[in-house]
């Protein structure tokens, strides 16, 4: 009887503590750094400008110029600039071109720096 009690007590202990052997598995949390997706816009398409023709009109050739325009079926009207304003227009044009070039260049540099190609 004494032995039966001992076995019973032992079995009870095993029964109660059995689940704690090995225990619950611990949850492991780890972070993986995922790089930001590349924007990868294509570069803007290049401009294709229309040809335009400058006509110089002076007090001497005005009649001849208007006559030629009429003969060519073009409205005899001209939008004029003085020589000084023409120079300013040329400089403004150059500045716009430079700004465009600068902006495009900056865009390329940013792209190269932040979105390098695999072999760069």
């Amino acid at each position, binding site marked *: 009887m004494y032995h039966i009690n001992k076995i019973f007590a032992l079995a009870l202990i095993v029964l109660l503590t059995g689940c704690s052997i090995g225990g619950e598995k611990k949850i492991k949390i780890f972070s993986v750094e995922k790089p930001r997706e590349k924007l990868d816009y294509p*570069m*803007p*398409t*290049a*401009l*294709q*400008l229309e*040809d*335009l*023709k*400058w*006509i*110089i009109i*002076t007090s*001497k*050739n005005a009649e001849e110029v208007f006559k030629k325009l009429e003969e060519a079926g073009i409205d005899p009207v001209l939008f004029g600039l*003085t*020589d*000084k304003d*023409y*120079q300013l227009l*040329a*400089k403004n*044009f*150059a*500045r*716009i*071109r*430079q700004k*465009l*070039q*600068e902006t*495009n*260049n*900056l865009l390329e*540099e940013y792209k*190269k*720096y932040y979105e390098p190609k695999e072999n760069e």
Partner: protein
Amino acid sequence: MFGQIKMIITVVLIAGIAGAGMYVMKLRSDNAILKANQHKLETAITEQNKVLEKQKKDFTAILESNKKLNVLINTFKQDLDDLDKRFTKKNRDIGKLAIDRTKVIERIINKGGKNAARCIELASGAEHTEAELKATKNSEINPECPALANPSYVPYQ
């Protein structure tokens, strides 16, 4: 009496062996921890070196990019000065010239306008033509923006 002493010695001996065993176990565990720490430190140093290398590379890239932009901005200034000179060189008055030699100036201005338009196209990212790339002489270049249009051209000093 003798039996009791024997038992005490045995207990002390067993306790001593158990203590020594536990101490060795502790040493081994400490050793394992130290080894893991050493590995972690070595990995951290490698990572740090990688970061430093990357930073160095980035600084070089930034410097190079800045240099490139500065050169570009200096070229812009040069182009504007050249344009100004073309209008005012040797007290040139383009208005008077246009009165005296209307057709010639008209032709020059139209050519200049065409060249300037081409410069805008190139600045917006258009591809260079073969002739533009090869141009090295004054007569072959686009005088409105030689640095942009004709990369092979070296201006005379």
